[in-house]
């Protein structure tokens, strides 16, 4: 068996955690109600955290909890109680960016500390400093190349984590406070308003006409073609961005990257016909145009998205399976409407999708309906191979895109 890095997936909620784990994540990262950078995300209550850690550990996955806000004094006062909970639950590490938070963690617990990408650790000397402060793993800034990451790992002996997929800040992480001054929301305490995705009119002041541009919007990172480089560099963990994203996203990225890594583990290479399928799957989730960012060379002009956010996906999530009654029906939590006769694609936890035509749609009261309603729960006929938490999607007709 060949060595492969850990696949670390986002878990924006308890359900997303279960989805990510079942679809192959080796580890998940999540946030409590406070101290993280996604205040708008569902995040975890204490009970959900307990259940999530139990679920992940039962399935052999690790759990890292984000405490990566730049906390103010009054926030720190509330931290010890949460640290006690995390210690009791035996979470596998916490992800931190602020030295005050690191200090409080060390004072009140023995939790393993990973340095968040929010701290923008970019070079060997920086990693050495954070090692002195007690961190055992560095989540490098997305501006660092894999080659540089290898050097940082070799010269510090620290575990190294890099982003492999997902949205990217255009700024050095932690170095953007646009929301603080324009929206009154602290971007570094979870209130980012994504002002970098806005359109701006740029006045160059040189007799050129002002030009409208989404000049601060970055394309999304996709590192599926860089997996060999990650492995050769000995990068310990490959992180997927996206705690605010859907169950479908969590499922797809976890499944694709875990299958790819499993292939390498077995064969020692990525010379698989499935590579094309994996890439196609990553194009079926909501995403901006993809780039390899700075994984190979520092990101250049081609990494700028420069267009309005839009969702022109050819695939839409139909729902998540809540229950499978063998030989009777499947209970589906509907995310987008579909009608009898639509061809549904079920994403099993591993392997290719299963295609199925839903002949009937019934409500929970067993009443046939001509169309499912988003947000409702419906019954469709039993499909062999379907499991609870499987995602079901549907290809849109050209006219619907």
């Amino acid at each position, binding site marked *: 068996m060949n060595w492969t890095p850990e696949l670390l997936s986002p878990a924006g909620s308890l359900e997303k955690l279960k989805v990510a784990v079942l679809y192959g994540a080796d580890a998940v990262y999540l946030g409590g109600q406070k101290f993280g950078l996604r205040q708008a995300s569902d995040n975890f*209550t204490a009970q959900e955290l307990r259940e999530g850690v139990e679920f992940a550990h039962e399935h052999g996955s690790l759990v890292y909890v984000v405490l990566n806000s730049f906390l103010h004094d009054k926030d720190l006062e509330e931290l010890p109680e949460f640290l006690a909970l995390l210690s009791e639950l035996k979470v596998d590490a916490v992800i931190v*960016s602020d030295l005050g938070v690191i200090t409080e963690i060390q004072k009140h617990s023995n939790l393993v500390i990973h340095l968040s990408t929010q701290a923008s650790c970019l070079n060997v000397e920086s990693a050495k400093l954070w090692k002195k402060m007690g961190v055992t793993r560095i989540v490098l800034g997305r501006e660092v*190349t894999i080659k*540089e990451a290898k050097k940082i790992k070799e010269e510090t002996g620290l575990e190294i984590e890099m982003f492999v997929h997902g949205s990217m800040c255009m700024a050095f992480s932690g170095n953007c406070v646009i929301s603080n001054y324009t*929206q*009154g929301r*602290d971007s570094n305490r979870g209130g980012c308003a994504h002002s970098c995705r806005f359109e701006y009119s740029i006045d160059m002041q040189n007799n050129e006409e002002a030009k409208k541009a989404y000049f601060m919007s970055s394309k999304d990172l996709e590192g599926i073609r860089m997996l060999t480089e990650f492995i050769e560099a000995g990068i310990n963990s490959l992180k997927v961005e996206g705690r605010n994203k859907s169950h479908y996203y969590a499922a797809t990225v976890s499944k694709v990257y875990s299958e790819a890594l499993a292939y390498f583990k077995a064969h020692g290479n990525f010379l698989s016909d499935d590579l094309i399928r994996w890439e196609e799957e990553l194009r079926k989730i909501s995403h901006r145009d993809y780039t390899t960012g700075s994984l190979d060379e520092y990101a250049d002009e081609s990494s700028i998205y420069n267009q309005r956010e839009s969702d022109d996906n050819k695939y839409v999530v139909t729902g998540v399976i809540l229950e499978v009654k063998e030989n009777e029906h499947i*209970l589906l*939590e509907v995310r987008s409407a579909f009608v009898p006769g639509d061809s549904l694609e079920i994403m099993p936890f591993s392997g290719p999708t299963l295609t199925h035509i839903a002949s009937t749609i019934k409500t929970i009261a067993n009443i046939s309906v001509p169309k499912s309603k988003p947000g*409702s729960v419906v019954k469709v006929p039993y499909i062999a191979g379907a499991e609870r938490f499987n995602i079901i999607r549907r290809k849109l007709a050209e006219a619907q895109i």
Partner: protein
Amino acid sequence: MKFVTYAENTTQLEELSILVETKRIAVSELEVIVGTTAISRFSENTVAGLEEMIALNQKFKLPLVLEWDVLQQESLFQKNAELVSRLPLHEFKAIRLQDPGALNLVKEKFPWLKIQLILENGNHNYTGLTRWSDFLGLQLDRLVLSNELSREHLSKYAAELKTDLEVLVFGRILLFYSPRMLLSPIRKVEVQKNIQDLNIEAYGTSEESPHAGFPLIENRHGTFMFNVKDLYLLDHLEELRSLNIGAVRFDLRFDDSFGHLENCIDLFEKRIKPEDILEIKAEHPRPVIKGFYNINKTDVLFTKLKNKRIQRQDDNYIGEIVDVERDQQMALLIKSKHLSLKSGDQLQLVTPEGKTKTLGLNIFSDTSGVGKECATTNEVVLLPFMSGVVAKTQVYLIHKDLQ
């Protein structure tokens, strides 16, 4: 309290020296930040230009502080580390650093060189500031604090930390720092060919919010965006002095602001009052603000970002209503791993709007309509319809001993 400002070239250094010579400010009260393009975010000074300033300063003997505030990935960092090691570091009173890598390098290689640590990103707590201070010990000259700290926090830190503290009192507020070149792609192709080595300055206006005129700079280090309003705390110099803030910084590098230098020094020296220099505000190309000096409430909106009522709250949590068929049934997904649902249970239902309802459970069934006495985690069961209950209603068991 020290007066800290920047000098970009020998001319500005000479102007500062004249102000010292003419006793407008004592040399012991002044600090001059100097830099060079490779290691300073906004300096356009060459290494030769910096060396020329250092040579000229042999005569003036102004306290010069070297600025190394760029954030750089390993390959670029190594080049800068080499450059810094070649500079006559003994000529500087201190070095200003932001990247923890630069900090570690200077601490290890130049333990005699005083450090001014820039903590403008985050570091909004006493614990962290103390740890940085302890880490650097006697090598630390000063902590440069974030613009987001309020007067209340500055007061506390100045009173409790043993370290000298510095705050910005006049100048641009940096909002965004990216290593990517974001402006040059917008320029006309024929212009791009000629301006590769030049900085680009522009103004951005949001098409999706009411904010107009963000100053933008693209240079060799990437792209920087500043707030549409500049920081102006010139009315608060005496207050900052009384709080025991060790240094106040006047960033006069942009918009020809260096012309305000004499007024700023006179104000600092209390020869004039803030109301005497209203022309600074009037002539300034942008509006000015006090930022977060009075109060920082940038976390108060967080509670509105999500509905707390749809979160599970306590140990009696049993699950969530996932669908309601009007006048027929409600589907309950049992989420609790530890509690089961039994016939005869009393349930409390909390809707997303916050309404609370109670349901005595006599009968329920599985999704095939088969009656059940008990259901456990992950099962979906059908309950009798109840008016006012909608999907995402949270369901709790009422303990029998509480009934």
